[in-house]
Structure formats: structure tokens, C-alpha cells
């Protein structure tokens, strides 16, 4: 690797009304390296990258961006693309109804005099798809691709722009381990071809797999830039949060009590095709335990949770018992009033009304409870949401703040608060810490422990194996729609879970 500095950001300061998001940040990237940018949510990583890519135009921030020794003044994303910087956002920016080919050349259509040459477009797409090891027809629509493949199309799109500097913001957040590994390999190949990568991720393990150097941000300031070999996970976490986390998983010793929740002969069909996603499932959850549900993505865990909660599109068969009583749930409303709550895996899509304030989001599922003769007691609403906001330590100046202005961890806490306000007996958490920084994760784990102590039965679905091992008392491993194995916490290891999750017997 040659040691040339390809990109330098000097003294970057960016202010939003009331907040200094970036405070004199310095950031240097060498040519051809994979440079990880790490920090908790809200540390300023995404803001820094938006400054670099021209989303925040020149003049709205202080400081200099220097690429290949030249000071850059990006006014739009187009300008940064001209300087061969390409960014892939956390949320995929593909157009679902368009084909792979159309998406890859969106905005840079291969045209002559305004008429698109589809032959060239298709052949180029095929070539680029090969580079990202994707075996798909360029005319396939995006909506027919899995999340992992969509992520690859995003990378292909960046390659099509001949980017020298590729910025990836949480590219693996929604991917399975295999998909993520595949993506990391592609990045390594790109690096071999001389592409420089700036890589943002909360998955520390990945960073140590591929990063050459890491820059750590905390509270909008640069903490340091280090070679990977000089860092360990513990050191990195300590630098990110500014304190030593003694234990990532605050596991408590508990003894499970009586069975509270029981699911019998549960069968779920796919909503679009006539295929079973869950077949004849039986399980129990006990008071005073956290039941972990592990498995690969697509194993049918989310479908199980959604169907129990009554929001799965298709007819299901089977029985649910709560405290020995059989439940008939026709929809989320029935489930909630019976005492079952579901924190869904995608908080922005299924959990929050982003343009409303914290208060309205917290009270959304409990409005009837705080109403008398169909009239909401607004003072009660403010009081309760304030209490939950404080006890869950949601970081905000007021509960009137719109949810879209909060960081991921705080947004997740708002969703948790919404469900706590319904006073659930059984709380199903589907990927409760996805895309959330270490500090907020720790707080959410503590909330889970507290709930269990208060007699709530917690069921946690997670793809994060250390999390499953660290928090669950009992682990059910799902493979292709059925529970393949039940493991007690003492006997469970990552290897065992993976073995059963991939179909071992």
C-alpha cells in the first residue's frame, strides 16, 4: 500500500440549530486503504460523511475537504461524484419498481443526445454485476431481490460511477452473516483494485476483519486514528464510549418460574405463495426468564412473531395460551389488550410515526386506556409519556420533540416505551438492538432485565449471537420454520447455535 493521503478533512465544524454535530473534526484517509469510522450513534459519523459527499453543501460547514491535494467545494452530491466520491447510505436508496440496470445508471444514463442506449447499459451492468459476484439478470426488478443482493446493487452503482473513494454507512446492518462475509470479500477485492473505502459499522467484529485503520469519533470530536493492529475490541469500545464497559451483557442470575405463555401446533403460511413458513410449532415461555429465539435470517422467526401478534396477512392455525387461558386474537388490538406486545424488527417502518412527537408515539397504543367516554385525558398522556421517557433515559430536551430528530437508540427506546405503556404480560422483541450503539444497547439490556424482574415474560428474537448468548436464559434455535433445538444458557455456544440454525441434528 502506498502511503499517499487521498482525502483529508481539516477542522470540520457543522452546527445544527442548538447542536454542534461536528466540532473541529480532522480525518485523513490513505489511498487504497479500508478506513473504518467508528463511534456511538450520534457521534457524528453520518454527518461527517454527508459533509464529504456534498449533502451539506460547501458554506454550511466550516473547515476544508482536500482530495488529492485539492481543496473541494461541493455544492451538491453531483459535485462530489465528479470528484469520484460515492456514498452508500444506511437506508438503501434504490427504486424498487425499477430494474437493476435502470438503478445502476440512474442519473448517469448511458445515452446519446438524450436517448438511452439499452444495449450498452445492459452489457455494462452484466460486467459490473460480475465484479460484485452477483448472478442476476440486469432486468430483474429490485423488489424481487433480497436485502443482501440490494446492498450489492448499491455497490455496483458506486462502481459504475468509477468511484475512487467509496463510503459505506452500515452496509451490513440488515444482512445475514453469510451475506455480510460475501460483502466484506467484495470490498477486499475492490481494495486490491485500488479503491479507497470508508467503512461505518456497529459490528465491531467486521471492522477488525477488514479495516486497515480506524478513526474514532465521540460527541462530534475526533478521539484518535489508530492502526488496526494497535487496537482490541475492548480498547475500541472504551474509546468510543469514553469509559470502560465492564460487561456488555448485564446478565442476572434468575430462576424461571411457571409457564405463562404457550403456543401449540402453530402453522403459518406465506402471504403471497402457498407455502408454510412455520410448521407445527410448539413452545412455552416462562415467567422470570428471557427466551431467546436464534436462527438465520429468513428462518421464519419474524413471521412467527407477527402471526402470534395477529398482523400476519394469511390465515394461521394453532392455539395460543396465556396464563392457561386460550386466546383468540384477530389483530394487534386483541393481542395488545390480552397483554401481548411486539417490538418489530424495523422500527422506522413498523414502530414509529416519524413526523410526530415522542409523546404521541409513546401513547399511541394506549390512547383508549387514558380516555374516558372517547375523550383523551391529555394531561395523563403528558404525565405518563414523561415518566416513561425519564425511566428509559430517552435523551431529548422535551417529549414534544419529533421522533425523526432522535438517534436510532433513542428511537428504539420510544418504541419500547410505547409497549411498556400497554403494560404487557408477554413482550416479544424482534431484533431489539439492531443498528444501535453500544451504550444504548447496554441500557436496553438493563430495561429487559428490569422487566423480567417485574414479572414480564420476555421473548427476544436476535441474529446477534453474542447477544442471544449473553442475555437469554433459554434459547430456541429455528431452522426453516421449525424449532430445531432448545438449548439452556449453560450449554449454549455460538458454534452449537450455528450448527442447529443451519439444519444440524
Amino acid at each position, binding site marked *: 500500500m502506498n502511503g499517499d493521503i487521498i482525502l483529508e478533512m481539516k477542522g470540520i465544524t457543522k452546527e445544527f440549530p442548538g447542536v454542534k454535530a461536528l466540532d473541529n473534526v480532522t480525518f485523513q484517509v490513505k489511498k487504497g486503504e479500508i478506513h473504518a469510522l467508528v463511534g456511538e450513534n450520534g457521534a457524528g459519523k453520518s454527518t461527517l460523511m454527508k459533509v464529504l459527499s456534498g449533502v451539506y453543501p460547501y458554506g454550511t460547514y466550516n473547515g476544508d475537504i482536500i482530495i488529492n491535494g485539492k481543496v473541494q467545494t461541493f455544492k451538491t452530491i453531483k459535485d462530489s461524484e465528479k470528484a469520484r466520491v460515492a456514498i452508500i447510505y444506511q437506508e438503501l436508496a434504490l427504486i424498487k419498481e425499477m430494474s437493476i440496470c435502470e438503478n445502476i445508471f440512474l442519473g448517469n444514463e448511458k445515452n446519446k443526445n438524450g436517448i438511452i442506449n439499452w444495449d450498452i447499459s445492459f452489457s455494462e451492468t452484466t460486467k459490473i454485476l460480475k465484479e460484485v459476484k452477483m448472478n442476476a439478470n440486469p432486468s430483474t426488478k429490485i423488489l424481487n431481490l433480497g436485502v443482501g443482493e440490494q446492498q450489492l446493487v448499491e455497490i455496483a452503482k458506486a462502481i459504475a460511477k468509477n468511484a475512487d473513494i467509496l463510503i459505506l454507512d452500515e452496509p451490513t446492518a440488515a444482512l445475514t452473516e453469510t451475506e455480510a462475509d460475501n460483502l466484506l470479500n467484495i470490498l477486499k477485492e475492490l481494495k486490491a483494485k485500488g479503491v479507497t473505502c470508508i467503512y461505518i459499522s456497529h459490528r465491531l467484529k467486521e471492522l477488525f476483519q477488514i479495516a486497515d485503520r480506524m478513526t474514532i469519533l465521540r460527541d462530534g470530536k475526533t478521539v484518535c486514528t489508530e492502526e488496526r493492529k494497535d487496537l482490541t475490541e475492548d480498547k475500541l469500545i472504551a474509546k468510543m464510549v469514553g469509559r470502560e464497559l465492564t460487561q456488555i451483557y448485564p446478565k442476572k442470575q434468575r430462576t424461571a418460574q411457571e409457564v405463562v405463555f404457550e403456543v401449540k401446533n402453530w402453522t403459518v403460511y406465506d402471504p403471497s405463495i402457498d407455502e408454510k413458513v412455520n410448521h407445527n410449532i410448539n413452545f412455552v415461555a416462562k415467567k422470570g426468564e428471557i427466551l431467546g429465539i436464534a436462527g438465520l435470517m429468513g428462518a421464519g422467526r419474524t413471521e412467527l412473531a407477527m402471526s402470534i401478534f395477529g398482523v400476519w396477512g394469511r390465515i394461521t392455525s394453532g392455539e395460543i395460551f396465556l396464563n392457561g387461558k386460550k386466546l383468540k386474537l384477530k389483530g*394487534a388490538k386483541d*393481542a395488545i389488550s390480552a397483554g401481548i406486545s411486539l417490538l418489530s424488527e424495523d422500527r422506522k417502518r413498523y414502530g414509529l*410515526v416519524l413526523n410526530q412527537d415522542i409523546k*404521541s408515539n409513546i401513547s399511541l*397504543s394506549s390512547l383508549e386506556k387514558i380516555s374516558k367516554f372517547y*375523550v*383523551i385525558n391529555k394531561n395523563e398522556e403528558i404525565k405518563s409519556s414523561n415518566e416513561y421517557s425519564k425511566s428509559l433515559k430517552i435523551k431529548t430536551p422535551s417529549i414534544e420533540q419529533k421522533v425523526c430528530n432522535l438517534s436510532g437508540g433513542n428511537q428504539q427506546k420510544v418504541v419500547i416505551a410505547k409497549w411498556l405503556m400497554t403494560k404487557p404480560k408477554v413482550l416479544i422483541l424482534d431484533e431489539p438492538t439492531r443498528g444501535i450503539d453500544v451504550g444504548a444497547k447496554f441500557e436496553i439490556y438493563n430495561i429487559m432485565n428490569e422487566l423480567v424482574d417485574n414479572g414480564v415474560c420476555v421473548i427476544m428474537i436476535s441474529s446477534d449471537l453474542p447477544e442471544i448468548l449473553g442475555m437469554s436464559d433459554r434459547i430456541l434455535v429455528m431452522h426453516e420454520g421449525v424449532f430445531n433445538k432448545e438449548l439452556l444458557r449453560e450449554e449454549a455456544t455460538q458454534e452449537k447455535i450455528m450448527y442447529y440454525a443451519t439444519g444440524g441434528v
Partner: protein
Amino acid sequence: MENEKENKFFSFIQKSIKENIRQSTMIIALLAIWLIFTFLTNFIFISPRNLSNLFLQSATIAILACGMTLVLVAGHLDLSVGSVAGFIGAIAAVLQVKLNMPTIPTILLAMIVGGMVGVWHGYWVAHKQIPAFIVTLASMIAFRGAILGITGGQTIGPMKDSFKAIGQDYLPSFLYRITPKLDQFGNAIKDSYGDVVTGWVSIFGGKFYETNQPPFNDISLIFALIFIALFIFFQIKKRQSRIKYGFKVLPLNFEILKIVLLSVVIALFFSIMIFDKGIPYAILLVIGLTLLFSFISNNTPFGRHLYAIGGNAEAAKLSGINIKQRLMSLFVIMGVMTAIAGVVFTSRLNAATTSAGQNFELDAIAAAIIGGTSTMGGVGTIFGSIIGALVMASLDNGMSLMNLDVTYQYIIKGLILLLAVWADIATRKKA
């Protein structure tokens, strides 16, 4: 000390404007339009008679805008309200003129028909998942045909007097039945200070009239006073309740100032009508419906669920909201509101015509949007839409007073709509 107090006062004003920036800009815009027309029409525009008329003209659109706001907030749209209002007006006219039906059963039947149209829309939108745009576009076309069928292409009228009263008559005056003439002194006062001041001073003993009787509508005055008293009562009650819950409240002197200022605004609004012919029944209806719908949208689970559905339907569903049932209720409410608007409009015209209700849907949607309702759903207030309806009516009224060519009237109205949305987006970016 004095200075510090003043600073505190200004920061309070600043804060309350900032918090209600959307509504403040709307009110300022409305007042600006009024001011411009006042000068352009040589002060005819601002006279109580004209403003009274203006309120009355805006009634139909204001009623429709109440319902339309909720529909837009839930992320939907109703293009059929114009045709359906015309259709229901035609039914009412047929019932009264051809079948000699009394007024109250006619109105009830009209509302039931409106509700049934709502069920029809709700069925297709909520249960068959057909976009409301298409369902109501179909109704817009179909009901225009139904009007022709019912009226046979003829204008049907006149209506019974009691029916006509809804859109044309005023609260009766109990004591003073004649409109007295001003004496010389009274005329001088009126010329320098205007009708409203003259009226108020005469109530408190000013003798400006030849007959010694002040020209005001006493029932309307009593109504206005009760209204203001209730307003003050509820403000105080709200404050006490907040104190009981241990929330922050405004310092007492600011609170009093706020209540006094708002009471004065309400009093001014009513004075315009008290010193003309009295409060029209249609305006009473609009006031009642505005309060009711504001309450529904802010203080009931139903209203809040609509905001959630418009903001994020999937999250709303997973939060236990029965979307189908909510949408069904929403369209039934919209149908009933359309019926009420149809009744008011027919009563004002004193007849049903084949073209009745044309473009009402666009005016109602424009009023809601000018008032800050988002076409994307999840955002909007009833109060804003009422202001929007007033803006639309003021433009119509003012430009007619100026005798402006209809060509320009349409062009200007269209541009104002665009301008309003642009101003909305620009202020939101800043806030």
C-alpha cells in the same frame, strides 16, 4: 426592572409565535389580504355587512374543509364532495318541492344519504384497498350524472321557508326588531370610527340614534357573551388541571393577557355580525362543527389514530389500530359533512341546480392545503383549514367587489394556492 419585564414579555410573544408559526403566518396572511382589499375597495370590504356576507359565503367550503382535513390527515382524498353535495341538495329539493316533506325529516334523510355514500367509499377504500383518489373520482363523475337524473336537468325550487332559513337567515333579535337610523352625531361617529365602535359605544349608553335604540342583534350579543364566558371558563379550568398535574404553566399575568387578547379577538369577530343583521344560522353551524372537529382531531383516540394512519400506516396497524374500521368511520363522517354542506348550499340558493357543487372538492382541498394540511398525510389542523377557507372566500369576495374580470380571479386564486404551499415549505425548512 421595567425593562426586564418587557424582555420577558417579548420572549413570551416570540415563543408563542414560533410554536404556532404555521397558524400565525396563516392569520397574518389573511389579515394582509383583508388589508389590501380594504384599500383596493375603498373600505367597502371591511364593512360589517360585507364581512358578514363573506363569512356566510365561506360556510359551505368551511364545512367541507372540516371533513376534508381529516381525510387528508389520514393520507387519503375525497374528490367526490362537490358532486355528492349537489346530489344531496337535489334530493332535498325533490323531497321538499315534489313530495312536500317537512324540513327536519328532509335534513335527516339528506344526512343519512350522505352517510350511505360514505359507507360506499369506505367499503372500497378500507376493505378493497382501492386508492381513495380513484374511488372518489369515480363518484365525482357518477354523482354528477345522478344529479341530472334526479332533477331532470331542471332547477328545482323554491324550498320551504324553514329550510331556506339555514343558509339565509340570522339569529332573531328579541327586543329590537327594527334597524334604527343614526342621528347626525351618530353618523359623524360612524364616519370617523366605523360601525363596530359606534355599536359598542351605543350599547354602553352612547346615544347616536334617532329612535334611541341601538342597532344590534341582542340574541346574537347574548350568544357571543356566553361563548366568551365559556371560553374563559375552559381556559381557567385547563390551567387548574395543569397545575394539579404539576406541569409548567404560564405566569399568571401572561395567562390573563393571553385570555384577554383572545377574548377581544373573539368579541371582534362576533361584533361584525352583531352590528349587522345578527349571527347567521349557517355561521353558528360552522362554529359548532369547527369546535367539534378540532376536538375530535385532538382529543379523541379516533382523531389521533387518523394522524398515525396518515403518518405511518404500517406502524399504526402494529400499534393495534383497526385501520379498516377507522377509515370506514372517516368516510362516513365525510359523507355526512358533505350532506350538511349540500343542505346549506341548497338553502342559500333556495333551489337545486344541475351545476350545484361544482369545484367544491377543489376549493375544500385548497382551503385545507392553504391552512397547512399536508397532502402526504399525518399533518394538518381544523383551525388552519377554516382560515384557509376564509382566505379563499376573501379572495372571491374582494375580487368581486373590485369588479375584477373572472379570468383574473381564477388565475389569482390558483397562484395564491401555489404561493401558500411554497410559503409553508419555506417556513418549515427554517423552523
